[in-house]
């Protein structure tokens, strides 16, 4: 008896959590007239989708911005995490703390100077400005995560590598990176979802409308309040799919990243 009540409650919660998907699917399968009158079924919104919202081009933009930002975050975060964990230098603890504290700085707090600086560098037209800002915002967390992860690697392994003539860079690339794949996956998945789903940076730092990521494109059309809601919902579904797939496939890395530092 108790088990069945429990099961029923869980089904109920599942319905609530699936509600956004139901709204997107059901609404996108109506024409605008049908949406306003409440009933009916039509593929019209999907047929017109690319004419209203350049989803193809926007998905490409999102992919470019995500990939480039994540590559920079990894390229910068891996050696830094390695250095803070294994190659301590003068004042490295203090520097590490400063970088980790930067995790807590919301972009809005430094938005105005950031925007003006990046504009002065001439980077707010296309992807570059947004990529650098995303990379800078993602770096503190990745440094923290990699440093925490690398502390668990035995010193002897690295020392052996150095004695074998690998050098510090060789030791990082040949010995440490291969065993850091789970940490790399965690950073990649978390950052992918974060950047793919973000609005503020893309909205302000990518001024060319032809290079807009999909989340920004949707938000701007929605705020304009003139686009047909069914088409907007079809676009939303397209934008949600990649992040959902990544999420479902790499769920466990996400959980690991979220609880990093307290689950031991």
């Amino acid at each position, binding site marked *: 008896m108790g088990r069945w009540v429990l099961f029923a409650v869980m089904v109920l919660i599942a319905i609530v959590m699936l509600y956004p998907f139901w709204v997107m699917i059901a609404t996108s399968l109506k024409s605008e007239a049908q949406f306003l009158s409440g009933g009916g079924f039509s593929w019209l919104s999907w047929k017109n989708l690319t004419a209203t919202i350049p989803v193809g081009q926007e998905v490409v933009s999102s992919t470019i911005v995500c990939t480039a930002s994540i590559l920079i975050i990894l390229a910068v975060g891996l050696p830094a995490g390695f250095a803070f964990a294994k190659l301590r230098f003068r004042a490295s603890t203090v520097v590490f703390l400063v970088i980790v*504290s930067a995790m807590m700085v919301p972009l809005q707090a430094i*938005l105005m100077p950031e*925007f003006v600086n990046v504009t002065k560098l001439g980077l707010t037209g296309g992807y570059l400005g947004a990529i650098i800002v995303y990379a800078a915002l993602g770096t503190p967390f990745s440094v923290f995560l990699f440093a925490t992860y690398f502390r668990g690697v035995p010193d002897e392994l690295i020392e052996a590598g150095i004695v074998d003539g690998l050098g510090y860079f060789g030791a990082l690339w040949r010995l440490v990176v291969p065993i850091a794949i789970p940490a790399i996956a965690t950073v990649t998945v978390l950052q992918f979802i974060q950047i793919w789903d973000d609005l503020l940076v893309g909205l302000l730092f990518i001024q060319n409308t032809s290079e807009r990521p999909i989340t920004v494109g949707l938000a701007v059309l929605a705020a304009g309040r003139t686009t047909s809601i069914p088409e907007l919902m079809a676009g939303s579904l397209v934008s949600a799919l990649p992040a959902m797939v990544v999420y479902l496939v790499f769920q466990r890395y996400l959980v690991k990243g979220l609880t990093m530092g307290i689950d031991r």
Partner: protein
Amino acid sequence: MAGFLFALPAIALVIGFIGVPIGQAVYYSFTEWNGLTSTWIGTSAWTQALHNSNLWTALQNNALLLLAVPFALGLPLLIAMLLHQRVVGWKIFRSIYFLPTAISWVVLGLVAERFFAYHGTLNSIIHVIGLTHVSTNMLGYESTALSALGITFVFTMIGTNTMLFLTGLATLDPSLEEAARIDGAGRWRIFRSITLPHLSRFIQLAFVMTVIALFSALFSLIFVMTGGGPGYATTTMEFLIYQTGFDQGAFGTAALYGLILFVLTAIVGVVQLRLIGSEE
């Protein structure tokens, strides 16, 4: 020395794009600034800003939204406890519950707008339960728009926080609960004396993450759901910064508001650092 060189790119990126702008924000908060030229006006910039009623409205909205935090923690805790009972199909339920976490808050905001709309789901539910003459339009009125935003925020946080609590519960030794049960402890007693203390670190972390999200991640929801309105009813600090800077062109004032937001999150951040620090 090699260590420093390895860390240098990360240090440069963080200092250049996070550290330097903080310093600049402090400087520009004492100026009149349109993005190109700035004039030093000293502390009068601050007195002017602090006398602006919009600032206080935004701070008040942020404070009121804090009332959503207990729900954003309590509901996930409950859901995590349910999942932890491991009824048939719990893994599928887990995936379903976490799924909205992957979706942009822009999209969730659009869906929430449909939910609260005059011809939306909320009114359908109200009509189905028999209140056919009652119709709401929560986003349309100053008195209710912030509540609608708060409810949406709670929904958007459920996945992440449930995930945190479920991870916490998984690290709980089941024999402890078993022993307490044999000793005759009731469910509530076990929850209060064993489960809750065990989860305290996870609850702290979830609290910090939730409050920080509340201060700095609502932009997408506000942008698509209300645009800060009606009036200033849903303008929070982060949205006020955006409006002041990009709608009104008052970059100096916006930088100043940014500093206020910075201090607010720094207070929460100190709690977070303690949390991380106490582990080492």
